[in-house]
């Protein structure tokens, strides 16, 4: 699904519209943050964030550097500008990926289980970070996850997908003030409702 929105794969049927225009190929206005950090090991942290910016026309060198610095600051990694990728922890790598995806200023950010491989503590930190960034930059974020709490914490709309074939089954609107804490009771109530729906979905699929 995410790959189709990104334009990396073609849909079997139907089409994806972005601003009324069909999506046929990958484009800068829809950037992807992958499950594993797809950072380039031949570039340092700064070079990675610059990569997408260099492909954006009409930017002076100074512009590009300022933008890259701004986003590294935003994800809290200014001090690691010159670091090599292998020197970073898993959480830091995903932060750099986030900065790299945000830097070219896409309209939509596509996130494919970006925190799945991280430890719980780092993940909770990033929930906070991403809500802050979302507030500051006002991006549409499409976030794929298997973690119901994560979905309830980050999403305004939570869409439930059925397995094989993957179809949208149900939609939940999460109306909680931000920033949300993943461990809050209100959030748990939403999560319980969504989990219930998810379970009944599994049963119909099995039966």
């Amino acid at each position, binding site marked *: 699904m995410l790959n189709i929105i990104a334009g990396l794969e073609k849909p079997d049927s139907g089409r994806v519209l972005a601003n009324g225009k069909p999506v046929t190929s990958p484009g800068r206005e829809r950037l992807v943050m*992958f499950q594993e950090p797809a950072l380039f090991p031949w570039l340092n942290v700064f070079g990675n964030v610059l990569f997408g910016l260099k492909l954006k026309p009409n930017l002076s060198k100074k512009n590009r550097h300022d933008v890259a610095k701004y986003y590294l600051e935003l994800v809290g990694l200014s001090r690691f500008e010159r670091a090599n990728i292998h020197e970073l922890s898993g959480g830091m790598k995903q932060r750099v990926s986030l900065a790299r995806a945000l830097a070219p200023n896409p309209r939509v950010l596509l996130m494919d289980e970006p925190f799945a491989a991280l430890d719980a503590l780092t993940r909770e930190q990033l929930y906070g970070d991403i809500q802050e960034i979302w507030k500051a930059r006002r991006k549409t974020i499409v976030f794929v996850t298997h973690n119901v709490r994560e979905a309830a914490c980050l999403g305004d709309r939570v869409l439930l997908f059925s397995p094989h074939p993957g179809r949208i089954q149900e939609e939940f609107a999460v109306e909680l003030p931000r920033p949300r804490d993943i461990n809050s009771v209100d959030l748990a109530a939403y999560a319980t409702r969504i989990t219930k729906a998810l379970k009944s979905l599994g049963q119909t699929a099995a039966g």
Partner: protein
Amino acid sequence: MKRFLLAAVFFAVLLLLWEAAFRARIWSPVLLPSPWQVASYLKNAAVDGTLANATVITMRRLLAGYFIGLVVGLPLGLLTARWKLFRDTIGTMALGLQTLPSVCWVPLALLWFGQTEAAMLFVVVMGTLWSVVIATETGVRNVPPIYRRAALTMGSKRLHMWLKVILPAALPFIVSGMKQGWAFAWRSLMAAEIFVTILTGFGLGQLLHYGRELSAMDQVIAIMLVIVVIGLLADKIFFSPIEKFLHRRWGTSQA
């Protein structure tokens, strides 16, 4: 510093053992000259210019052939990695020819080009080319697909993708191919120079050959030393820094 001292002691002991063996007269001095004789040959050859001349000629042949091998091999490797047609044809040929010891090109080169510089160049190119083709192809095919996908979403395509993503991602493979190509080229050139007298230039291999003809063991050993030193220098000056950089960047361990 300690490591340097230990190494110095090791080589000093080696020299002493050599000198001792010479003094003990176990072998005839014709077969085993003393280190001093070798050193004095080196000094004379350095002073009268023979050594510098031969080194320049050999290095010129080596670098010209190596350069051609790289310039042709790199694009060929990219082509074989990109298109099946090239993989099945040029790729297969490269794999086959790479297993051929590069010395085996010498007889063919002689018959085709005669005793000319072209024959030398051909042998060196053949020694370099196939390793570079194969390493480039392997490198490109080992680039994790996720790099490509990430770059695609950021708007990279075609030439930009090849130059800024695929080539740098394949660099560790390509560099080890270049190193292997260098070793093969060096070996094949020495073989060619020893077998073939070419009047347009008297290289290190030829000095080695005439050392043997004249039973001048001091010359033979001296030239061998020079060849070893050139090999070491090429590694330290050219390949070592590149490899160090790659290790640092990629975080691969360094022995």
